């Protein structure tokens, strides 16, 4: 390697590192980062922890229904999301779409569903159908169509078109060709992706409670607003257990699906 090349590379590395550092400084200024206050605030935090202890375990009966609500919101939202994401994905995959117009329409809808955060969908649906878990289900399913639609479409675009051609040539109808040649190949991947989505949606459905979409998130918010820190810590434990349990379950099922 010539000295000139080495010099140019070093110059490039130094410039890059300087630019990245500048970017970080910019971010710290914009976010008003003051780590020293975190140190000064240690007392306040310790106080808060002391007041959160011991967790109010006696709430367990009252926590049952909201926990179930959170779980069911995620379950229904995910299943509805999968059911509607499949047709969107078929239209949004280049190799299965019936027409270019539908392709672009499906791609655009999927992008819109995905780009609007589930929290914003929840706010919209709360104002449409009122407080409770149902707007949460709607929000999760719409956002899930956006997330799953794109991934499903990618899986469909990756399939081997040989069997599709072979079955079309038997004179089978379009739908039969899809169910017999495409579905068996993509089903395990779709199931795996859907289970991963369930796992994401359980976390999302907890947060949705904060904007009035029911469940354990709503209990957590109420307890915080009333400064009932022992209740807060109990709900956080339930939250933690729920997330881990669903994560484990979805990982175990994914392993069997593939």
């Amino acid at each position, binding site marked *: 390697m010539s000295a000139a090349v080495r010099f140019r590379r070093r110059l490039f590395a130094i410039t890059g590192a300087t630019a990245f550092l500048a970017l970080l400084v910019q971010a710290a200024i914009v976010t008003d980062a003051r780590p020293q206050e975190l140190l000064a605030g240690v007392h306040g935090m310790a106080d808060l922890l002391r007041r959160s202890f011991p967790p109010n375990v006696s709430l367990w009966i009252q926590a049952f229904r909201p926990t179930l609500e959170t779980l069911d919101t995620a379950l229904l939202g995910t299943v509805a999301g999968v059911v509607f994401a499949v047709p969107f994905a078929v239209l949004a995959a280049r190799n299965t779409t019936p027409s270019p117009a539908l392709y672009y329409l499906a791609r655009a809808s999927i992008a819109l569903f995905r780009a609007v955060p589930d929290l914003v969908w929840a706010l919209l649906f709360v104002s449409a159908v009122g407080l409770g878990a149902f707007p949460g289900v709607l929000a999760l399913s719409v956002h899930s169509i956006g997330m799953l639609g794109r991934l499903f479409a990618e899986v469909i675009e990756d399939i*081997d078109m*040989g*069997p599709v*051609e*072979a*079955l*079309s*040539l*038997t*004179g*089978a*109808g379009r*739908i*039969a*060709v899809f*169910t*017999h*040649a495409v*579905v*068996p*190949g993509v*089903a*395990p991947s779709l199931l795996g992706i859907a289970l991963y989505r369930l796992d994401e949606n359980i976390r999302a459905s907890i947060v949705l409670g904060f904007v009035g979409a029911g469940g354990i998130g709503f209990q957590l918010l109420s307890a915080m607003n009333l400064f009932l820190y022992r209740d807060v810590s109990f709900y956080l434990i339930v939250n933690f257990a729920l997330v881990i349990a669903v994560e484990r379950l979805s990982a175990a099922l994914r392993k069997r699906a593939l």
Partner: protein
Amino acid sequence: MDEPLLDVRDLSMVWPKAEQPVLRDISLSVRAGEFVAILGANGSGKTTLLRCIVRLLTPASGSIVIAGSEMVHLAGAGLQRARRRVALISQNANLVKRRSVLANVAAGSLGRRREWWTSAGALPQSELELAHRYLQTVGLDDLGAQRAGTLSGGQAQRVAVARALAQQPRVLLADEPVANLDPEAAGDVLRVLRELAHDDELAVVCVLHQPDLAFGYADRIVGLQDGRVAFDVPSSAVSQAMVDALYRSESAA
């Protein structure tokens, strides 16, 4: 009986944006019970001809009559109906790898069996039983329960033949079905195709790459050269010189 099952007349085909036609005025008729082999160098139009016949491609002019009905102007549902009479076995077996061998064979019946529940992904019990018989025909009936993805190349190609049978076609087209197979497996596949012509009265057209196999199995040999029929004669009348002439243009070009 003397009416040909496959009757191609003056078929021409030009690729979009290409200047030279890939098929020029091809005429070919095949009767029930005949096993016809097509030979030709790479680019002579063998595969294009078969893909035109099943209307994966649209010819520029000419006519294709299968079992008495014209294929050229069909589209949509009419084309789907017409395709049931002609099966194409391609160079790759194109099986659904995650499904069982038996289900792959029975899926050949989907053109005939158009109940709503076959569209939902199910297969009729009676077709699964028939599929078992077709697997016997190709000598693989003990592999029915296995996943198609686990088969060897020769086995997969024979399953593709069985799937074509499940379609119950009058005309069977095969595009280099033995190109990827060892000699023994190739012989198995060609023997089955010949029996289908001779015993079951199908019209069988098979594109082959090795002239020896064509001599050994076919009743008639059609030589294609630069998109034209160079010769169309009984196997016994084909000389080595005629075959050599077919492949000479390839090295010259």
